């Protein structure tokens, strides 16, 4: 078959052949013609015009009624042609927006990046994967001169770019707090005021903040309405929910955050997560806590980083590789 050019001759020959034989080959070529026309931004009314011209050449005695009816069709298609052109323009615009968002997502990654510190006696694994391009989850590690480890994990209720912007603010507030301010409940109280004053009331942030002392194995923590973590006690071979009390950030400037603590013994583990893990959906059903813990148990003997990645792979597969929410998981293994 020959290549197609958008011209009347080509179309006329094709039409003639089809009218004579009504063969599938001509129809297939018509399809090619149609696709090629779209590639060249040929609008529907122009195709109809070509059709009219071809018809007149093939049938010079074309009844005047048919001629008029073809003109009528041409007029009718003008608006479709316009809508098609508009669609093309909007599609280009969409492409531009997508590339801008991907630049923003890269920038966010750079802004919010944190490195997992080396703490003697503590194996740390962390993973955070956005469901779309921008991540509304956030985690951060910070150490002080006596090697205490501060751990933050947060989730903006709301997704996309606004959530990501709010997270940048959280990160810079945390960075700006003096190093002497390490008390989880004080940190959350301060962050709460920052969020309350600077973020739209429709946006809430949940956050867990912990301070780990490697000397004593103590983990002090407070939570602002964040998804509860789990403490695995090796001695009892059991998981315990780390129940806390505290309002999500940004609701009331009077909020206070109770502080709790646990002491981690050898082989104990703390699991911190966001609701992207616990509210993972299989079909219409939410996964339950027991199932999450079973998966965690399956991998927790591995080095922490490897383990969180494998847990993530497990849930990713379970959800057909389409995360419905940002997914963040941290293991702290003693």
């Amino acid at each position, binding site marked *: 078959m020959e290549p197609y050019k958008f011209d009347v001759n080509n179309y006329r020959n094709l039409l003639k052949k089809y009218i004579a034989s009504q063969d599938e080959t001509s129809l297939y070529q018509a399809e090619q013609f149609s696709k090629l026309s779209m590639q060249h931004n040929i609008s529907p009314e122009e195709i109809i*015009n070509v059709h009219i011209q071809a018809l007149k050449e093939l049938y010079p005695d074309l009844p005047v009624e048919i001629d008029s009816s073809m003109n009528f069709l*041409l*007029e009718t298609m*003008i*608006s479709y042609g*316009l809508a098609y*052109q*508009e669609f093309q323009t*909007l599609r280009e615009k969409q492409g531009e927006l997508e590339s801008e968002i991907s630049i923003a997502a890269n920038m966010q990654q750079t802004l919010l990046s944190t490195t997992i510190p080396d703490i003697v006696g503590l194996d740390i694994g962390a993973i955070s994967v956005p469901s779309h391009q921008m991540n509304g989850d956030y985690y951060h590690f910070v150490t002080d001169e006596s090697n205490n480890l501060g751990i933050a994990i947060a989730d903006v209720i709301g997704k996309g770019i606004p959530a990501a912007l709010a997270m940048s603010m959280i990160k810079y507030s945390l960075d700006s707090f003096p190093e002497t301010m390490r008390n989880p409940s004080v940190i959350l109280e301060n962050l709460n005021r920052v969020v309350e004053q600077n973020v739209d009331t429709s946006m809430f942030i949940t956050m867990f903040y912990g301070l780990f002392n490697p000397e004593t194995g103590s983990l002090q923590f407070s939570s602002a309405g964040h998804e509860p973590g789990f403490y695995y006690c090796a001695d009892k071979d059991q998981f315990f929910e780390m129940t806390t009390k505290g309002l999500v950030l940004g609701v009331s400037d009077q909020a206070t955050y109770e502080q709790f603590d646990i002491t981690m013994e050898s082989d104990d583990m703390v699991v911190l997560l966001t609701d992207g893990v616990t509210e993972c959906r299989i079909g219409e059903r939410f996964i339950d806590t027991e199932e999450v813990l079973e998966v965690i148990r399956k991998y927790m003997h591995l080095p922490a980083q490897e383990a969180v990645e494998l847990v993530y792979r497990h849930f990713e597969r379970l959800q057909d590789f389409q995360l419905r929410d940002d997914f963040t998981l941290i293991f702290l293994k003693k």
Partner: protein
Amino acid sequence: MITKSSVQIRKEWDIVGARQMGRNLAKELGFGTVDQARITTAISELARNIYLYADKGKVAYEKIEDMNKKGLRIVASDQGPGIHDLSKVMEDGFSTSGGLGAGLPGVKRLMDCFDIVSEPGMGTTITTIKWVR
């Protein structure tokens, strides 16, 4: 040589009159069938805007015939409320009437030249030209 004529737009029926005059002039100038249809569609949009948003105004036509090229200039003008945000109405996908592809961006696509001057409270003048190919 310049020939001028115009149609007043007061009621919906006048849109048809505006189309008819535009089509006749386009035919006289030797526009092909597709361009005739495009010109009349553009006139429809312009006249409809006057009818819907300005209550009254007019669509004026000028045949442009000089040595090198021939064309039709269409000027739609009204003394209506004017347009506050011109870049907004020229944006694709923005339409107060909810139409697809139509509106002023549609007119711009249908014609070769497009210009709009509008002052809130003073009215709007849209000038467009289509050249005979």
